[in-house]
């Protein structure tokens, strides 16, 4: 990846975090931790890899994206707004009774959202259905999905994986946002999910394990996944929950907690500082 481009995408990920944090500040609620761990993934998908038309959100040949970890709208909505699907001022209505940006991903009213999600484990099946639908219709497009590493404790993830692997859905590229932390504690403490690479490989996936905060590694992994025919792809993105804000990083407490005033101030300061550095 060309260094300028790389820097741009890194900056984009910081903008997603900053915009997301503003949204949480305004709403006094929202899931920050898991949104910040997947910000680089969102930047690479929406600002580099996905074949989309923000001005025509229902374009039928577009690549699809399913946020299976549907609570991480603090990453999804800012990404869509920054990409031009809707005005960023709408983000002020997040989680509000008079708005449409519901707490979990909402497809009926939010342009660019390809599937409503929220009940963990369900989104990935819908992505598998989309991949099957694209194949049936002879459409050359890619379906992307992001799951949480706590979410994959849901049995339905493995039903969907079994189907995708058995049917060689190679137009499906999924991520596990492996930030190692879920609501009650670390994944290891709550229910150790073990060797994810071996698990998904045994389900028939082309599996890669990467640094999920390295935009170049994400982009390269997507390219390799597209080149691999006959198998669905799983990218295990090793990430840090709450990435970008020192006091949130790796802490389960920041799964869904709202910062207080001083914490907001400190978090914004850190994010703006990093964004300015990337601006050069």
């Amino acid at each position, binding site marked *: 990846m060309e260094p300028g481009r790389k820097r741009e995408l890194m900056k984009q990920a910081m903008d997603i975090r900053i915009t997301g944090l503003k949204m949480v500040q305004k709403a006094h609620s929202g899931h920050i931790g898991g949104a910040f761990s997947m910000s680089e993934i969102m930047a690479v998908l929406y600002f580099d890899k996905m074949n989309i038309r923000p001005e025509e959100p229902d374009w*039928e040949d577009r690549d*699809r994206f*399913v946020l299976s970890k549907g609570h991480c709208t603090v990453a999804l909505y800012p990404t869509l707004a920054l990409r031009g699907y809707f005005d960023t001022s709408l983000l002020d209505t997040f989680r509000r009774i008079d708005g449409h940006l519901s707490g979990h991903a909402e*497809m*009926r009213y939010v342009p660019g959202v*390809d*599937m*409503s*999600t*929220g*009940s963990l*484990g*369900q*989104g*990935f*099946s*819908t*992505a*598998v*259905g*989309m*991949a*099957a*639908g*694209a194949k*049936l*219709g002879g*459409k050359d497009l890619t379906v992307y999905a992001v799951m949480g590493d706590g979410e994959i404790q849901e*049995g*339905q993830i493995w*039903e*969907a994986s*079994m*189907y995708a692997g058995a049917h060689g859905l190679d137009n499906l590229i999924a991520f596990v946002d492996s930030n190692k932390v879920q609501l009650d504690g670390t994944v290891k403490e709550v229910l150790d999910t073990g060797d994810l690479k071996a698990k998904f490989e045994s389900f028939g996936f082309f599996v890669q394990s990467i640094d999920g905060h390295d935009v170049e590694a994400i982009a390269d992994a997507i390219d390799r996944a597209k080149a691999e025919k006959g198998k669905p792809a799983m990218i295990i993105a090793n990430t840090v929950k709450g990435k970008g804000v020192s006091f949130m990083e790796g802490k389960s407490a920041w799964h869904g907690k709202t910062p207080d005033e001083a914490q907001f101030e400190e978090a914004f300061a850190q994010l703006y500082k990093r964004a300015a550095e990337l601006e050069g």
Partner: protein
Amino acid sequence: MAEKVATRHAYGESLAEIGADPRIVALDTDVSTCTMSVLFGEKYPERFFNCGIAEGNMIGMAAGLSTFGYIPFVHAFAMFMAGRGYDQIRNSICYPGLNVKCVGTHAGLSVGEDGATHQCVEDIALMRAIPGMTVICPADAKETAAATKAIAEYKGPVYLRLGRLAVDTVTDVEGYEFKIGKAVELHAGTDVTIIATGLMVIEAVKAVEELAKEGISARLLDMHTIKPLDEEAVLRAAAETGAIVTVEEHNVLGGLGGAVCETVAANTLVPVERIGVKDSFGRSGNALELLKQYHLTAPDIAAAAKKAIARKRG
């Protein structure tokens, strides 16, 4: 009467027929030779997805397929469609309002010998509680064929409840027309109205004949659509006959009886007697013997009708 046909068989044939529409796709959970989606699968293998024994994933896949303009029909036994698949149906299909048809076969006690784990008597209650869901339970082969075509044309989520048993055709009456949300009057009457759904309609027909012998004029409504309920027909029955009996192969809580009582209680004052499973699980046994043991037969309906009439206010 012609030979008996199970509603699931009529359904399978009808689905294969409407499968000429390339938007229709079918998904099953390793029970396609029971749900009879196999007839579609044999004809249109490229549009048939056997998802294995995994209801949740099947329902989710259908949601995804529907966003590509397909009209997915998903299949499982009623127990595992409405029961195990409840969260997926609610959140992946109904909440986003996707155009998926959920077909639950082998509903009710008449599953028979397989016993309680497979005898779903809660599916109507579960499905009708979901906002935006349409719930249909046809009485016989003819009505099932008509319902299958109608739900394919209707845009939105639908739960179609089918039975295992072969049943007589009861809707072969003049002027019959299937319309979602519109009850069919199978028999005119003035003393009491029997509102039945699904495989219980045939028992209700027999009850009407028994009552007639005793000089009681019973109206019979075939309530194939439980949601949206034909409130107009219910309230007309209340006003014109003054007493109602509901009949379903389902728990008396939350199903047709519940729906009719809600409508009646909110609008008028007439007695309603509910025939159904009295808040208990089923058990293994011959289907017809089970219907007797659980008081779901014509004599039970006739007795309930008389009780409802006796409760009328002077």
